[in-house]
């Protein structure tokens, strides 16, 4: 089991080093843990780390004020000791900081947190959670998750030998 404090420590280090790939990995680890225990703070961790990794990897974000990253690490430090409500509160502050930055600097109508929600919901769906459950956990729009999933290889994992049976059922019903 991965502790949230460990994930926060790793996130602080990754933000300090501007390591987008490390943030992606931490986000994936947080989501895997969230899938099992369902805790909101782990979901939020997965979302903000993914969003921060996107910010760090885009060219048009390279010029943003260094103070932004300072505020992010400060909030991670405040989130670290807990209790759970405090952790959540400070992770939500980070979420707001990211949204505000994206409103100012972003190139798309959707903010980077919304993109993270869709991506992480698709990951949860891939892990075996229903589309609704995955969308509920992340706050994503299920329609957009479905579209995202359609463009991925998630459905290549198939249950065998039912196509002929399904076709026969459809013929019986609508025949």
């Amino acid at each position, binding site marked *: 089991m991965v502790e949230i404090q460990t994930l926060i420590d790793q996130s602080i280090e990754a933000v300090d080093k501007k390591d987008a790939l490390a943030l992606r990995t931490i986000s994936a680890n947080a989501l895997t843990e969230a899938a099992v225990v369902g805790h909101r703070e782990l979901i939020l961790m997965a979302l903000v780390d993914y969003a921060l990794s996107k910010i760090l990897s885009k060219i048009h974000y390279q010029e943003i004020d260094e103070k932004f990253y300072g505020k992010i690490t400060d909030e991670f430090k405040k989130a670290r000791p807990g209790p759970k409500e405090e952790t959540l509160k400070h992770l939500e502050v980070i979420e707001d900081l990211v949204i505000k930055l994206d409103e100012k600097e972003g190139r798309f109508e959707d903010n980077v947190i919304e993109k993270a929600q869709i991506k992480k919901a698709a990951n949860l769906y891939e892990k075996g959670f229903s589309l609704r459950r995955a969308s509920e956990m992340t706050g994503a*729009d299920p329609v957009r998750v479905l*579209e995202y999933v359609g463009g991925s290889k998630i459905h290549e994992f198939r249950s065998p030998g039912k196509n002929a049976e399904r076709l026969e059922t459809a013929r019986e*019903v609508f025949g």
Partner: protein
Amino acid sequence: MRRKVVCDSSSLISLSMNCMLPLIVELSESADFMITKTVYDEIITNPRRSGHHMMGPLQFSALIKNGILQVEQANQSMVSDILSLSNRTYYTHHAPLEIIQRGEAEALALASNSGILLVDERTLRFLIEAPKQLRDLLQFRTHHGVSMDESMRRAFQRYCEGIKIIRSSEIVAVAYEKGILEKYFLGEAREVLATCLWSLKSKGCSLSTEDVEEYLKMLK
């Protein structure tokens, strides 16, 4: 006898995004298409509120007004049972994995007693048809040991007896065989069929590449 087809929002959304809802209108001559109140909210209320996919509510509202889609209330005690059983079937570290939500349980309750469930998303389908495979998937993807409570699974399966599952791909397949596709999509018939199946896949219908290829072989 007319059959009852309970539609999940995933299938309706796949069909809507691909301009294929007229197929439902045509096929409603042979069967009754139903949705639960939760699905109604997912395809009409929520998109209106969020402002995304605004064409969907316009199309679905017309289908409901014209009696093509009927909104039905599922038996709530059955819904609670289904929800409780399915979300206590898979365990990690002795804690249950909550894998489905009320919407899926309502659809299942409405389709119980030999109904047809039209669902494009994968998880509910796996839960009903291949519960062991779903356990393997959960285990593989969460990197945790996942166990399955057999007594819960058996109790859950009682609600699934006689339920048959189809996807929007089967709607397209039957529409192709009945000559309905050609009324709405102009082109060489096999090419139209292939395009429709690949388009459904790309919008989220749980079809693998192998599934689409198998369909193209099965349908003459």
